[in-house]
């Protein structure tokens, strides 16, 4: 169906962890069904992160929040009881929410407005 949309969506296919996945132009998975832990690990490697059990707790938390359609923000992660903001930055340096959501295979949080 033709429709006017405000952003041009470019979708690319790539092979990661031996799997064919589709990502958008910023490298975010477009279909969470293609995600598994191997894909997560491979995406983490691309961001120079090796996933420890603490990383996984955060990744799983973000996936659950996404499933229940809770809008994600750094503030909310900081108040989650899973990780505080300081540690969140240590685990996923520079832009933690963007990096962690990418690894988790969920959309980049829409920075509101």
């Amino acid at each position: 169906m033709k429709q006017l949309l405000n952003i041009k969506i470019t979708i690319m296919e790539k092979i990661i962890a031996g799997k064919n996945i589709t990502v958008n132009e910023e490298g975010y998975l477009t279909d969470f069904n293609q995600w598994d832990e191997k894909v997560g690990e491979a995406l983490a490697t691309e961001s120079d992160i090796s996933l420890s059990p603490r990383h996984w707790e955060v990744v799983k938390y973000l996936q659950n929040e996404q499933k229940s359609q809770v809008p994600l923000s750094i503030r909310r992660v900081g108040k989650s009881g899973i990780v505080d903001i300081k540690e969140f930055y240590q685990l996923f340096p520079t832009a933690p929410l963007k990096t962690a959501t990418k690894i988790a295979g969920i959309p980049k949080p829409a920075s509101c407005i």
Partner: protein
Amino acid sequence: MKQMKNLVILGAGTAGTMMANHLQHHLKQPDWQITIVDEREEHHYQPGYLFLPFDIYAPEDIVKTIEEFIPKDVQLIRQKINRILPKENLIQLSNGEGIDYDVLIVATGAKIAPEETAGMKGAEWQKSVFDFYTFEGALALRNKLRDWEGGKLVVHITEMPIKCPVAPLEFAFLADSFFKHKNLRDKVEITYVTPLSGAFTKPKATAALEHLLDEKGIHIESDFAIEQVDNENKTIVDYGGRAIPFDILVTVPTNKGDDLMERSGMGDDLNYVPTNKATLQSRDYSNIFVLGDASNIPASKAGSVAHFEAEILTDNILHYIKGEPLKAAFDGHANCFIETGGGKALLIDFNYTHEPVEGNFPFAGIGPLRLLKESRMNHMGKLAFRWIYWNVLLKGTHIPFVSANMSESGKHYEAITQH
């Protein structure tokens, strides 16, 4: 005898005042009493705070009384609100009195909360750390800038969402202009620090605005989530340890809804009221509606948004009162002038699904205003808007040719196939 019903509006700012003016045409005595509650005396033209620090506006340009904009049949109660008891349909005032309501409109707005960030309201507050989202803050900053001789000026956003998300950018542009006029520009280093990945939240506008920042020699630091203001070393530090030095920090602190929501158990973690983004009805209580900055809807926190919402909410409240399904749907329409300095401005027009693009406004192909392009005409539009605000907008008069729902005509969208 039929009892008179009560519609109560909390907050007599932009949103609440417009709503009182809209509804008084429809809900009349003896069937309805409209009441508006606000403890303040003054109504401020908040967009004017941007111009105060640069001596473009004087205080008297932006302050009037609340009372002069409230229609005479609407009862104005000037009391602090203690709590909303939504299950009892009751407002509890601080003086102990109560107000019953049949329909409640929450329009208590948003305000800055510098205390949310460590060190922000510290020893340097209003000495070298300023906000311009309050009258006092903007005035203190004006006094500082009047005889400042240069150094590092850092313009900073703490976290999103904030009221008028373009205001800090406008501040940076106007500062560039201001120091050029004072022949000080070569002594002032301007840095724009944002928690976002770029200058704005929408891609096309971000590209246009970053081009302007670059042109004006304003350096941008993105993805900066502030941990603290270090008052001793005069730096802001983010959670990753990045430190940015300042001589003057102009920050937009965390914005929050009114504390009243916390006291009433009605807000989210930033005290915004969970609201249906199309109907503007509270998610939790069917006889409560939320307008303007007080809601959690994903639209800009801006006067133009409240204006468009008010037209839609008026319809929905009338539907609600008649027991009809809520029909009118808000599309997130926002329309903002962005001052870019040097007597020019940009105009952006967007909604939930359509980002700001280039084009003409309000007439397709004609204008006279140009979208996402700097022009003198847009600047005149911004200055004229103050008059429109006081004389048209607050009174709930429809602005000709500008509809509550956004128009797609005259705008340069790319046609693509949706997957």
